[in-house]
């Protein structure tokens, strides 16, 4: 055999490698040419000994080149064939990836409950603990300790559900503010709490009223707390809830348990402040009431108004949910229609 024969052999082998159409075939080709014992190229290599010493070096080089070329061709073809076979296997396991799969196993949040959790998270960041208080209260905690004696005009807006005897001494709280009092009585300042919970007022159900609804109360009592602190806190929270761009304004107001008292409005998202049906042509939507805790209320809570001050606020997550999610009827929040819940 001469180097020329070896070249021919190699050419034949390369052609067969190219023609092999399965890994099995390719393996047969490999054995035929490079088989350890009787591969044709292997055998050719063994002829080296028969050659004259001066021919050996050239043949050896030729042999190494040929077998190297074959090995790499085999490897390349093998990779090609293996990939092809994996493709075929995967093709056989076809899935309609356009199918709108939905996990039936994941439940959804209630819009208001979810919003309350969001509000809790925002306040947790500012160091507020979320606490709870009873939903049934006495007149003392719901009104009197909050600077609303019997016949106080501010009670007008708190149309109250009273319980029948023998539980006649109890009422359904009309706001979460009594928990302010409970918190002050339970612990000396500093206090930083929010109180999400249900309240009730005697309003017939209609698109903008439900007799039971939610409030989130907040209270911060410490040395040297200012109205500026209230303003900064509300602005932070409202921006966190409604977005950085949303305009906020504070308006003087009146609540018996705060002095000074403020209400916060956000610009109406529907009309951007121009006035529309959603905002009753005002351009602004009222979202919370707040103020500096009235000295009399601090005193009722065992806090000395000479050394300490505080602010309090109350917001309505039901209304905020209606605004944020574009609901048209507050009552929808209490129907638990899955078509609505599934959006949250």
């Amino acid at each position, binding site marked *: 055999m001469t180097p020329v024969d070896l070249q021919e052999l190699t050419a034949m082998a390369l052609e067969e490698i190219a023609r092999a159409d399965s890994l099995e075939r390719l393996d047969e080709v490999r054995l035929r040419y490079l088989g350890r014992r009787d591969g044709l190229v292997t055998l050719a290599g063994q002829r080296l000994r028969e050659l004259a010493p001066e021919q050996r070096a050239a043949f050896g080089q030729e042999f190494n080149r040929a077998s190297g070329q074959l090995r790499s061709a085999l490897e390349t073809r093998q990779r090609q064939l293996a990939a092809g076979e994996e493709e075929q296997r995967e093709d056989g396991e076809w899935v309609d990836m356009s199918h709108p799969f939905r996990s039936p196993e994941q439940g959804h949040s209630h819009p*208001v409950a979810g919003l309350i959790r969001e509000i809790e998270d925002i306040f947790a960041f500012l160091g507020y603990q979320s606490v709870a208080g009873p939903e049934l209260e006495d007149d003392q905690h719901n009104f009197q300790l909050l600077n609303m004696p019997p016949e106080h005009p501010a009670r007008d807006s708190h149309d109250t*559900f009273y319980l029948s005897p023998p539980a006649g001494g109890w009422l359904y709280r009309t706001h979460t503010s009594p928990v302010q009092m409970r918190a002050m009585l339970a612990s000396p300042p500093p206090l930083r709490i929010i109180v999400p919970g249900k309240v009730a007022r005697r309003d017939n159900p209609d698109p903008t009223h439900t007799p039971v609804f939610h409030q989130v109360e907040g209270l911060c009592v410490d040395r040297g707390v200012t109205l500026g602190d209230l303003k900064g806190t509300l602005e932070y929270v409202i921006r966190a809830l409604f977005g950085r761009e949303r305009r906020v304004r*504070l308006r003087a107001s009146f609540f018996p348990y705060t002095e000074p008292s403020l209400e916060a409005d956000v610009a109406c998202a529907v009309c951007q402040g121009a006035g529309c049906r959603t905002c009753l042509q005002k351009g602004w939507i009222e979202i919370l009431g707040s103020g500096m805790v009235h*000295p009399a209320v601090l005193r009722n809570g065992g806090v000395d108004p000479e050394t300490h001050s505080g602010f309090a606020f109350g917001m309505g997550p039901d209304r905020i949910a209606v605004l944020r999610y574009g609901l048209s009827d507050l009552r929808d929040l209490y129907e638990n229609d899955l078509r609505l819940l599934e959006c949250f």
Partner: protein
Amino acid sequence: MRVSHEWLGEMVELEGVEPAQVAELLTLSGTEVEKVTAYGLGLDRVLVGEVVGLRRVEGSDHLFLANVAVPGQEPREVICGADNLFLGALVPWARPGTRLPIGLEIGRKRLRGIWSEGMLCAPDELGLGSDHDGVLILSPDDAEAGMPLDRLYPADHLYELEVLSNRADCLSHWGVARELAALLSRPLRDPETSRPTRSASGPALRVNVASSTDCPVYLAEVLTGIRNVPAPAFVRRRLAAIGQRSLGGIVDLANYVMFEIGQPLHTFDLNRLPAPEQELEVGVRRGRHGESISCLDGVRRELDPETLVITVGDAPQAVAGLIGGEASAVGADTAQVLLEAANFNWARLRSTSRRLRLRTEASGRFERQLSPHLARVGADRFIHLAVRHLGATLGPRAEGGAPLTPAAAIRCDPRRISAILGMELSPVAVAGPLRRLQFEVREEGAEMLVTPSPYRTDVATAVDLAEEVGRIIGYQEVPGTLPPLRQAPPLEALAEPVARLTSTTCRAAGFSEAVSLSLVSSERDGLAPRLIGDLAHLELANPLSAQLGSLRQGLLQGLLQSAHHNQARGQDRVCLFEQGAAFWARGQERPEEPWMLALLDLADDTAEDGAARLRHLMALIASLSSAGGGGAVEFRPVAWPALHRARAAEVWAGSQLRGIVGEVARPVADAFDVRGRVEVAELRLDGWLKPGGRPGQAPPLPRTPALVLDLSVTVPIRALLGPGLQAIRALGLPELELVTPIDEYLGDQLGPGVKGWTLRLRLRHPERTLTTSEGDAARQAILRVLEREVGARAR
């Protein structure tokens, strides 16, 4: 309350101030402007015309043809549909080419063969309120043909105000002007008053106030020689602008003063009061049982000792501060009046108004704690106007009540006000807004002595002054800051329930979060399965309806209602949970408010599929307990009201009953109009689960291999797995790490009345590998226990 820009402008200079700016200033300072409406804009283009001819349009039953004239021009023909025209009437005439303020373009129109030259206008067409009853008829006292209408109705804007409940002073133009003067830093011009000389004519007068608590001030003034002619045009125009009808000169002036100064006045026709024997004695006292009075609105009202009445010669003439009596009402022929300017106790008026179900402009003001100092101003203003415009002469006067106490001065440190507001304010910056509000400020060293305006009843302390300064400067000027964060210990006593953990766990298990009203019908609530049974419901004393008349004892009735709602809207699977307070009565004691969780899984499926859903629910309860640190739960089969008799269990954790779980009995599902199988649970979470779970203790984690074995047995078909597993655990095998049921099966090859269980056992020794024979020994021990406890046999 509605106020007029033009009227306010008489008391504070509003030149160059746009209505939108007024609205914003008032709103931000606490008097919310709900609406601004233009009134009488563009009326310079409408002329006053005189009707000089009038006839029906032929062939029409409702159209009239009027000949309308203005001086120096030929009369024109105008067709009109209103039937209140008459010859000589002065009417607003919009000629062709006029554009009315409401946007209407007036043209020459041909109707029934006649060219109509424009339009005779009703008030609403001119933007003068909503009246559309007929053409606006102008009084010849004010109007003359040819004059442009804006001479009678100058352009104005009306503000609809929402006045805060502690600001009775803002229920008047004067009060609102006082605010604007402070907000705009412009001077306040008080309405003109004068004290004309008193003539001796008229009866002697005495006022007798029974209690100065009920009535701190009562001023009575006699005015004689009155001509009850229409009030001057500006009075009628302003009253009309704010929506008040004209009721004759005397009543109009009294109303005008109320809307201007804020002091309600009442005028009695002196000649219609019981004739005095010697002197006219006006009394203010409580009503008596059996007394009654016929009121101005034609209604006869019973009096009682809770009601305050005005009497003359002891006969009731008015319900104090609320409504006058019919008998002494002012009429067209009234020539002498007894004027009342008084102040009545706000709480008394509130309760009277509520009891009589009557609210008037007067009572609405008294109820909000009107300043008693206003009575004098109101009386003087009325006298001034009545003398000038109705020709009145001032007669005798008398007064009752307690001497007026001047407003008390408030001592305050301007630094305290800075500290409350959180902004640096110099003493001058503090005093400025207060002075602009007509407060008197005297500096005393570092402190200030501030006397609020006598017309403000809401300012008594230093924090009240801080609010005044803040709102007049404007809260937009206060820099927003965050309070320094100081350590506040957690409030254990009011710790929040496990709401968040529960919600996350239930949602992860495929249940959606529901929220229901806590008010229910006790009947429906009683039907639903609930953890507490046989307990009377807490009832509302003043419910809106029976459907919302009681407090819920459990949460499942709400979920069953929601299940029905969803099923009726085409949902075939409904998985919901709700958590919240339930309410359990304890007699007179504070009711108990357990924090409950209810779960519901509804589908119209087979008994077998229902059982699978029930098992899923029970698995969720177990994982919830483990997440909330509630320990291992145990389900004890039980018969429970409203649940399936063979599919109900109590949920126990430790030695406590924590809830119930099961399938709703079919009649109960029927009662809630729900089809299919409803798997439910109700659990009481407080006292059981903790928001963060309980801190765990890491077990040893030996590196030795586990020996995992399966044990298959047959047991009687109704054998209970729970007690079986408990018995295995009670065996206390030290190497038994875990036993898990992995299969339960029925089959022909097992024979009748039996079923198969396969349990997987995981055994491990902490130090060495267990041998097969040790495994077999454990398996044998367990088998023996199961034989004894549940009648198992090896398979």
